[in-house]
């Protein structure tokens, strides 16, 4: 008898029995053992995998390993209301954005969730910026009523702080207080220009307050390209990239 015949024969014979007990699976789970492997420097690499990605890597590295600047410290997100990475990110975007539109009052070009990697101490390569800001988001300038801006302040305060530049505040009981924009107290009756990204403007990362701008301007500059430009400009001026916690957002 062939295997196929046997199976057919057996199915025919056992079908009625199978129907009788058909409401249950056939094996009961009796035990689970769980573990996780940490993939660290002790694990050896599979050369077959490296062989597959090597041609891509070589082409990529030729482009991405170009050194475009230097930092004096690791820039990272941390868990505070402000971070060295967030401050650098927002300052760099505001600086480049103002070259196109000098009337920008302040910047929130990303949420903390959008900062995807820290920047290392020492040489900054193009790849570092791609890993920090891998998305293709575009910079926008929105002209907003004070009441809408208040919603953005609410978002920043409720989420415990976001990367900003040109604005300072103290978060108290999840509310933004002592808000200063461009060195002047926030005035509900005024309009303000905010530099942000198309992603945030569309309510990305559950942000809110930007749905009804009086005016919307597309700068034609991607967020990542603004960062790259800023780093390259600093480098050409002989400056090292640095960032401090300067108390722009405090929590009390």
């Amino acid at each position, binding site marked *: 008898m062939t*295997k196929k015949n046997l199976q057919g024969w057996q199915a025919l014979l056992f079908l009625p029995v199978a129907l009788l007990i058909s409401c*249950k*699976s056939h094996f009961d789970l009796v035990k689970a053992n769980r573990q996780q492997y940490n993939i660290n420097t002790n694990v050896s690499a599979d050369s077959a995998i490296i062989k597959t990605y090597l041609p891509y890597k070589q082409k990529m590295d030729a482009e991405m390993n170009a050194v475009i600047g230097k930092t004096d410290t690791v820039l990272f997100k941390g868990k505070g209301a402000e971070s060295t990475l967030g401050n650098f990110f927002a300052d760099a975007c505001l600086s480049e954005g103002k070259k196109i539109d000098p009337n920008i009052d302040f910047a929130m070009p990303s949420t903390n969730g959008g900062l995807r990697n820290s920047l290392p101490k020492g040489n900054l390569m193009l790849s570092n910026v791609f890993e920090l800001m891998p998305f293709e988001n575009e910079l926008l300038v929105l002209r907003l009523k004070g009441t809408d801006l208040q919603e953005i302040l609410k978002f920043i305060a409720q989420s415990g702080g976001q990367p900003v530049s040109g604005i300072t505040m103290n978060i108290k009981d999840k509310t933004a207080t002592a808000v200063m924009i461009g060195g002047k107290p926030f005035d509900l009756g005024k309009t303000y220009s905010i530099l942000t990204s*198309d992603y945030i403007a569309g309510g990305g990362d559950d942000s809110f307050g930007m749905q009804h701008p009086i005016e919307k301007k597309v700068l034609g500059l991607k967020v990542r390209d603004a960062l790259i430009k800023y780093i390259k400009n600093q480098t050409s001026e002989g400056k090292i990239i640095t960032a401090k916690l300067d108390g722009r957002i405090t929590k009390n």
Partner: protein
Amino acid sequence: MEESLRINRRKFIKAGGIATTMLMVGNPFDVFAKGEIKKLTILHTNDVHSRIEPFPMDGGKMQGLGGVAKRSTLIKKVRLEEENVLLLDAGDIFQGTPYFNLYGGEVEIKLMSQMGYDAATLGNHDFDNGIEGFYKQLPNANFPILISNYDLSNTIMNKSTLPYKIFKKGGLKIGVFGIGIDLAGLVEKKNYGETIYQDPIQKSNEIAERLKHDLKCDLVICLSHLGYSYRENKVSDKVLAKQTKNIDLIIGGHTHTFMAEPEDILNLDGKITTINQVGWAGINLGRIDYYFEKQKGSMTKTFGKYEINNTI
């Protein structure tokens, strides 16, 4: 009649694989079934985010960790040692290194195919180059994309995904289905287009019921990109586990949660639904070994103990 069956059955055993097929049909006798144990090994990743190479040795917290080539070594080792292995991913394959910016996910998917992934689900970042961007990489995938709560029928991906797949491993039937996160507010509308998000709890209950009862799976696994848990009242893996039944394991993602150990939650049936998530970037490879005992013919037979150890 019975006697001749017994004789024939011995022949089946000798025929190797046939014996297992017999068990699947439901053996009314206790002849060789008693105490039969089957073992299944699940290996899993989530949120690998285009991390092809290990993190560079640049002084960062993650330096030296991860890397697809190292993961592959571990996977190959487990496959040599274990007969029944399933390798699964819970989404966000894309985005995070220049590999994605330059090659659009081609490298990620090709390497997953090479490592022999059995299935993956869609994460929000898998839409970062639009639905078309993911669709374009599908020819590089030799594994199915499982997603049950996105209606993609008005998109280019309308024939590209499956709600679930049943894997047969050594006589065991394992039902695996995919659940995605609400894309609104996470992904730009232009990138997810006409994808319609459907209630993950309702969908999971529907699919898990079908897999466990109608299709008689011995184990039901949900690949979820909902996220482990949220402070606010938002659907997550923890909520999903509590409000569903028939799911044995939720392999989670999205929140990049490094869990000290898998979490066991009592589901709607008062049974255990386990949640596991292994951080992100391919820093860890999760492993769960499941042991099954064959039912001894009676519908009502219950096995008192489901033993769980956080060690292999």
